[in-house]
């Protein structure tokens, strides 16, 4: 595992404010000032382990978080209202003690990109979301076994009609191209045979059903292995295939590593490690987050924040918890920035990276920053009090307050040069949030 050597702070690469902020912006939804100070004092191991264990957040987290989230989610499903379901997810991300878990759930939502545009069923979308969250850190087998029978996913890929007379090749193709192997690692014949093996998998009344009558139980040859394979066999064959581990390694790196910082050797090493550990995603996340590569100078601030990461991160860092912002409005803003939860653009998910920074998105992010300080994310409006936050953390002089916000949001004392010091503090915070630097993590 040469590429993923654990990191030890050094004089050149110290555990400092920059790296604490890097960790939280890259692997969570940023952090409050108290959390940053705590992690700075406790050292990287404690900080990373808290994220991995799912108890890194302390401020803003209600005691009865899961219960509250359950009530909000039930209400959304009861109303059959997907906009409320988006709001429910934003509530989770804003108030969860486990931001890494939510980040991984987002990663899986992108991986198994299922759009409600076709499902039109809030209950099924929530059910899928719960599976993505439950299995977020688990060995991938658990996830794939459950997703192979997930009603929303099967409906998304037209599995309702999937009989031995007419195997659904679309389903077979997407399972291999998108969810496991990646394009180029299977033949057109594999698609046909996998489709045959999956016949009988269908959805009835919102539930998975295996219709034995419709299943083709003849011999199939998949990846040059012949047998009377069933759908469960397909899942097993896919889990054993080395390309699956490589694709998972790619997903993890896409999530936590910056642009161009993972070479083929590093990807292969992570994939090999995954194969040796039953594709344990939690292990892979821990390996990457503990690595020297993750904290290396060139991995700092070279990944574009996805809209959700940007929005929730800004609110968490600025402790916009009480009163809570309108999560319905946040979901709308996110869609406006290009990331409409439960509506990925197609089976490939969101393109990500530089593609997030369209003109429209940058204008939208700038307008979000303006709305945040103006209090326009609340119903009724509740302006952000920048001075109060800074004073609460010991910065009472004007100059100190500006430094405080630069440290909090960007991890460094010097703000981007050229930021106007004639502005009010609130406008200054908005400009910081809108700056090109703040779009990166």
């Amino acid at each position, binding site marked *: 595992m040469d590429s993923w050597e654990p990191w030890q702070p050094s004089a050149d690469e110290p555990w400092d404010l920059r790296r604490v902020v890097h960790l939280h912006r890259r692997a969570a939804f940023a952090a409050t000032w108290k959390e940053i100070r705590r992690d700075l004092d406790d050292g990287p191991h404690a900080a990373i382990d808290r994220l991995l264990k799912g108890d890194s957040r302390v401020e803003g987290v209600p005691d009865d978080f899961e219960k509250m989230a359950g009530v909000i989610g039930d209400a959304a499903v009861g109303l059959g209202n997907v906009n409320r379901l988006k709001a429910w997810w934003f509530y989770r991300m804003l108030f969860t003690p486990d931001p890494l878990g939510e980040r991984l759930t987002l990663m899986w939502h992108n991986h198994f990109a299922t759009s409600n545009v076709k499902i039109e069923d809030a209950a099924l979308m929530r059910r899928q979301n719960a599976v993505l969250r439950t299995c977020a850190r688990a060995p991938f087998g658990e996830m794939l076994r459950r997703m192979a029978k997930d009603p929303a996913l099967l409906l998304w890929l*037209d599995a*309702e009609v999937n009989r031995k007379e007419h195997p659904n090749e679309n389903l077979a193709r997407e399972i291999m191209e998108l969810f496991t192997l990646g*394009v180029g690692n299977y033949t057109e014949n594999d698609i046909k045979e996998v489709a045959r093996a999956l016949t009988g998998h269908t959805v009835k009344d919102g539930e998975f059903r295996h219709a034995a009558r419709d299943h083709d139980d003849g011999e199939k040859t998949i990846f040059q292995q012949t047998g009377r394979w069933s759908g469960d066999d397909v899942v097993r064959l896919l889990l054993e295939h080395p390309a699956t581990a490589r694709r998972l390694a790619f997903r993890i790196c896409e999530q936590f590593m910056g642009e161009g910082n993972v070479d083929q050797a590093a990807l292969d090493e992570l994939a090999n490690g995954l194969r040796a550990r039953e594709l344990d995603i939690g292990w892979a996340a821990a390996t990457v987050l503990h690595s020297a590569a993750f904290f290396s100078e060139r991995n700092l601030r070279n990944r574009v924040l996805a809209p959700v990461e940007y929005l929730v991160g800004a609110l968490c860092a600025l402790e916009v918890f009480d009163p809570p912002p309108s999560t319905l409005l946040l979901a709308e803003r996110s869609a406006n920035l290009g990331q409409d939860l439960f509506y990925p653009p197609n089976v*490939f998910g969101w393109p990500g990276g530089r593609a997030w920074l*369209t*003109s429209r998105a940058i204008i*939208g992010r*700038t307008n979000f920053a303006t709305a945040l300080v103006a209090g326009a994310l609340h119903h009724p409006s509740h302006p952000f009090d920048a001075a109060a936050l800074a004073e609460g953390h010991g910065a009472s002089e004007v100059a100190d307050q500006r430094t405080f916000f630069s440290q909090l949001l960007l991890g460094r004392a010097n703000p*981007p040069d050229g930021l106007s010091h004639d502005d009010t503090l609130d406008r200054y915070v908005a400009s910081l949030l809108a700056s*090109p630097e703040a779009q990166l993590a």
Partner: protein
Amino acid sequence: MFRTRFHRREFLTRSSLIALAPSVPVFLARAASAAETSYDGRILVVIQLSGGNDGINTVVPYTDEGYAKHRDKLRLPTEQLIKVNDQVGLHPSLRPMADLLEDGRLAIVQGVGYPNPNRSHDVSMAIWHTARMDRDEHKTFGWLGRAMDERPVPADGAPHAVLLGDDSPPVALRGRRSTSVALANLQDLKLASRPTLPDHRLAAAPGQDQNQDDDLAAFARRAALDAYATADLIENVTQNVANDRSAYPATQLAERLKSVAQLIKANFGTPVYYAIQPGYDTHAVQLPTHARLLRELAGALKAFLDDLRTARLDDRVLVLCFSEFGRRVQEDASLGTDHGTAGPVFLAGPRVAAGMVGPTPSLIDLEDGDLKAAIDFRQVYATILHQWLGITSPGVLTNSFELLPIFNA
């Protein structure tokens, strides 16, 4: 928040993207129509039918015995078709497009595809976007991006290409130097309040950009600069279209084409517009979905061209409609169709040579159960590049392709 004109001009002249432009406000100075004498004012509007349009049920070969043979449940009744000639008829939802055809404003190129067709949405779309068969080139530059690389920056600093919609600009628009942006509607391009980062902070240092395309921080700064320049342009544009009286259907595609028309009427400098109509991946219960999609397409297209005709701007406009593939000739078991190969391409505007182009593909003489393509899509592209955009550099399409009789001589 209102800004003074002085502020705007100052911004425009200071930003590097605009530095190539004359310092006068170009929207005001530029002549409204120079299309007759030059390729410069010409506009290409691309409508992408995503998912793989069933061309057989769009331009229906109703006298082909293969139609009844392969399309049992999905066959459109002959009497409902809008007959074009004694071979083909248009889907009944396409009445507005039939009107365009009669009116001399629509050309239908039949059986368009490419050799060794790929049935993956992703790969086939990448082939159409890039006009490259080699997968290694599918993440590089698109055919329109490469074409726009041959053009200078539009005089008013507008991007070369605009995607109307929620997605990122497609690979088709990605160029080495040319610019493309995405917008959902014009309102999305207005700033509630300009941040106080001065423009020289956003602009990269001189010489930096050329050599450091891979520097993400420089990319983010340049992206912000482009975004704010666009916001300033739109602020200007929307003031010109307050008394708009055109009649568009209430569909998403029509809304997007209306925004394109507004930008054109405002003499926005962008030469290429792009809109995506999703939903054509009709594996199941195809008939109602397909009818709705085609109705939306035809209604939006007709309203768009009529709107621009009223504004006397349609001479500058060509619309291209394509899909990544057609569908299998044989219908599937779920009242739908699976991924196929060749399909029709539509070209619309007053300058086209109206009518059918190319032979009607046979539904009997098939290859692997799929239509044989008679025309390579790159012939369509080559004709548009040469005869509409006036771009003849060989690098855009690599090979030379036989041009098609798409335009009036």
